[in-house]
């Protein structure tokens, strides 16, 4: 370890005697997993989490009633394994499920987990003053009752294939005794949020903003202690710093390798890479409505044929190759290949520049004044493509599209916006086009919110481009209501065919997430929706230990400052 060696060198140089502190203190535990990450978590309350970092941490700290299997089968309960609930019973009409809480389950503060914690979690999620997007996803759950302290019964409005998934996946259970007295509107800023208490196999130790978040093994956990002693997220302010910390061995794991980093990782014999099937897709989304007046169609993108022509002018395969090398496939629509309901051979609008040009000609968009940009009735064929400045890959794809469309006589202004600003514009539907990305959930049903009419009309809906097609909606609804996998797939295929031909977006890339890890780690399989899901099963063999593995389990022995966040 270059890092430790260097500390020692400096110690010799400075003649310091107390330098050996960390090395002399050895404890018998499973070692430390240090993860490089690019930012702080936003909030450590499961229902409010929006950043991927916070998702990783809360998944370690809190438990769900049951865990989804690696195959991400969401139909009924076949793919699920018991977690906080040790077993469950379906009612004969399948309109309710009674979950039995594992009697050994305890919160990290020692209190027992009871059914009323489950009810409290559901009710607080539905509380509008908390304002969580999860509420919209579990609308089919009517209520949760508690016949006894060990049983929580979920009641559903309709019997649908994914009701078990809705009840378990969306809601990690939080402790009622901690949160009960605090108004949900103030949870985010509360002290309790700074020291989360859960029932998961890791417990919270500290969150030093812009530096690190540390969890430690819950050695007395009802599911057994995890194999690792500690998990620390080393927070770097930018991609390069995070990557370099991984390359130099300061951390063991980096989740977001890009194609150009692979050769660098290969130069280090102790480092490995691993790709897995992801659940995200990226696309250039058109606004079909006039940004200034949503009642009117967009002056350019309101026209389906024009959208098709523009799609035709973009060489998606080349863009994906250029931006990702082999670490992504061209996207095939508003979906990902990992879903069992997705047909990977969906018909696409092909790349055909000459045809795109003649199509634009026939639509009346011609370059009469010879400036290289087409125009119609005095309006140039020009639009702004917004892209989050923090995502270098997406910026790259935007500049590539800019040049390709220039060749078709379309002028694109790339506008790099920062994420919160971009999100705000999307929410207000105030944009021409945006280079967007969706990280989807294990259920393909999320497409209802992101591309369906409901998601367009509701102010909080995610269908920012206002694509509205009754045909598409009907196919999606039929698919989600069917229990037979083959029928589901065929309905989804029809839905995807419809939207692809309507071209409300240019489907760009389906990234293949690639992680880098130190060979000293023994990892478990990486789950598509959450590579971190099996961290409690990861381990570091005794002969691969380095000094940082020997830090004792629990909080630091002599904290310089009170651990955790000191903000109000």
């Amino acid at each position, binding site marked *: 370890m270059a890092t430790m060696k260097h500390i020692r060198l400096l110690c010799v140089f400075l003649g310091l005697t107390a330098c050996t502190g960390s090395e002399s203190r050895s404890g018998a535990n499973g070692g430390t997993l240090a993860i490089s990450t690019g930012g702080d978590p936003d909030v450590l309350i499961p229902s409010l989490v929006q950043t991927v970092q916070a998702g990783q941490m809360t998944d370690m700290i809190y438990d769900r009633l049951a865990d989804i299997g690696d195959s991400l089968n969401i139909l009924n309960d076949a793919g699920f394994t018991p977690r906080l609930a040790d077993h469950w019973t379906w009612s004969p009409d399948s309109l309710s499920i009674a979950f039995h809480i594992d009697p050994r389950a305890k919160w990290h503060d020692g209190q027992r987990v009871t059914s009323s914690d489950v009810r409290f979690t559901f009710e607080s999620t539905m509380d509008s003053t908390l304002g969580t997007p999860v509420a919209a996803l579990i609308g089919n759950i009517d209520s949760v009752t508690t016949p006894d302290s060990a049983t929580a019964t979920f009641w559903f409005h309709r019997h649908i294939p994914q009701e078990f998934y809705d009840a378990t996946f969306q809601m990690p259970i939080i402790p009622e005794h901690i949160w009960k007295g605090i108004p949900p509107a103030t949870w985010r800023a509360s002290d309790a949020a700074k020291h989360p208490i859960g029932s998961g196999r890791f417990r919270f130790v500290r969150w030093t903003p812009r530096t690190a978040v540390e969890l430690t093994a819950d050695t007395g956990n009802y599911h057994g202690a995890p194999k690792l002693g500690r998990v620390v997220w080393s927070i770097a302010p930018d991609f390069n710093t995070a990557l370099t910390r991984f390359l130099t061995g300061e951390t063991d794991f980096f989740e977001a390798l890009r194609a150009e980093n692979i050769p660098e990782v290969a130069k280090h014999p102790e480092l490995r890479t691993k790709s897995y099937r992801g659940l995200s897709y990226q696309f250039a989304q058109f606004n079909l409505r006039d940004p200034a007046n949503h009642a009117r169609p967009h002056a350019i993108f309101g026209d389906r044929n024009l959208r098709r022509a523009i799609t035709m002018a973009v060489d998606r395969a080349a863009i994906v190759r*250029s931006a990702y090398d082999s670490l992504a496939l061209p996207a095939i629509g508003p979906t990902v290949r990992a879903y069992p309901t997705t047909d990977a051979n969906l018909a696409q609008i092909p790349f055909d520049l000459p045809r795109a040009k003649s199509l634009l000609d026939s639509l009346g968009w011609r370059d009469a004044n010879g400036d290289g940009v087409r125009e119609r009735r005095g309006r140039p064929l020009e639009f702004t493509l917004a892209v989050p400045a923090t995502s270098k890959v997406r910026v790259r794809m935007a500049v590539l599209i800019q040049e390709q469309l220039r060749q078709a006589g379309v002028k694109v202004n790339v506008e790099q916006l920062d994420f919160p600003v971009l999100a705000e514009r999307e929410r207000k539907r105030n944009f021409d086009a945006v280079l967007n990305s969706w990280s989807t959930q294990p259920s393909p049903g999320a497409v209802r919110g992101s591309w369906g009419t409901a998601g367009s009309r509701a102010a909080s809906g995610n269908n920012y481009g206002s694509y509205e097609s009754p045909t598409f909606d009907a196919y999606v609804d039929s698919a989600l209501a069917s229990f037979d996998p083959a029928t589901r797939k065929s309905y989804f295929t029809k839905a995807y065919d419809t939207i692809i031909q309507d071209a409300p977006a240019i489907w760009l890339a389906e990234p293949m997430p690639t992680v880098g890890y130190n060979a000293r780690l023994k990892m478990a399989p990486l789950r598509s929706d959450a590579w971190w899901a099996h961290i409690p099963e990861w381990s570091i063999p005794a002969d691969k230990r380095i000094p940082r593995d020997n830090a004792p389990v629990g909080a630091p022995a002599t904290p310089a400052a009170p651990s955790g966040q000191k903000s109000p």
Partner: protein
Amino acid sequence: MPGQIRESAVTSAARPRESAFALGLRRLLAKRSSRVALVILGVIVLAGLLAPFVAPYDPAAQPDIVALKNLPPSLAHPFGTDPYSRDVLSRVIYGARLSLTIGLLATLVSLTLGVAYGAIAGYSGGFVDGIMMRVLDAFLAIPRLLLLLGILVAWPQLSVGALILFLGATGWFGLSRIVRGQVLALKHAEFVTAAQALGASRRRILVRHLLPNLISPIVVAATLGVAHVIVLEAGLSYLGIGVPQPLASWGNIIQDGADQVATLWWMSLFPGLFMVLTVMTLNILGEAFRDAYDRR
């Protein structure tokens, strides 16, 4: 950190016998270092001016986004290619054009504002002068970069024209102080009083004598100013709030490769070298100008 700190020590008003500018220029050219600097700067300026003829490729063209991206320096691409398969040498040449233009135009804005403000303050004197100088003190107390950050975060997505205006509008404070000093000195200079006694109008004298006396501080301020603006623009582009795609400026090219500095080192190194070279020559010339005029 270009050395703008030292304000030029301007000699008190002197009667312009022969053109002060010509005299300074002659002294300047007598120095070998300034001649070398002039030649280097001339080459860079010429390359920028003739960019369409000198650059081997179209700076915005993406000839093959898969096969030709991220190529290290080679004979076909002496400075390598960027992630869009664009030729970095061509972009550096076009970058010279844009960076120098921005530097020059922004400095022109600064000079205009600086001379006008300083002249008004100095000419008015008294209360108005006092207020104007206190305002100037406040502006001088805000580091220029911070002032620009404050402005640019309020007006995101600026066009190049607006960027030039803002760069210019934040660069005149030092000069206007010098100009005011000159005007004040002139007001009380003996020869002015004498000329007045001979019946010449005070205003006419000021205008006639002001300009020649201001030429030296203006030339110095302009030379150093252009250097400073080039560095500032590059810094802002590096922070992502400067020149937009697909235009190329030196800072912008560095920013394009900033997320992969270790692998795409040619994207930081070459534009950076050109920038340092340009700024160095401008600093040499600026200091030489100052020495030439100070010795008078």
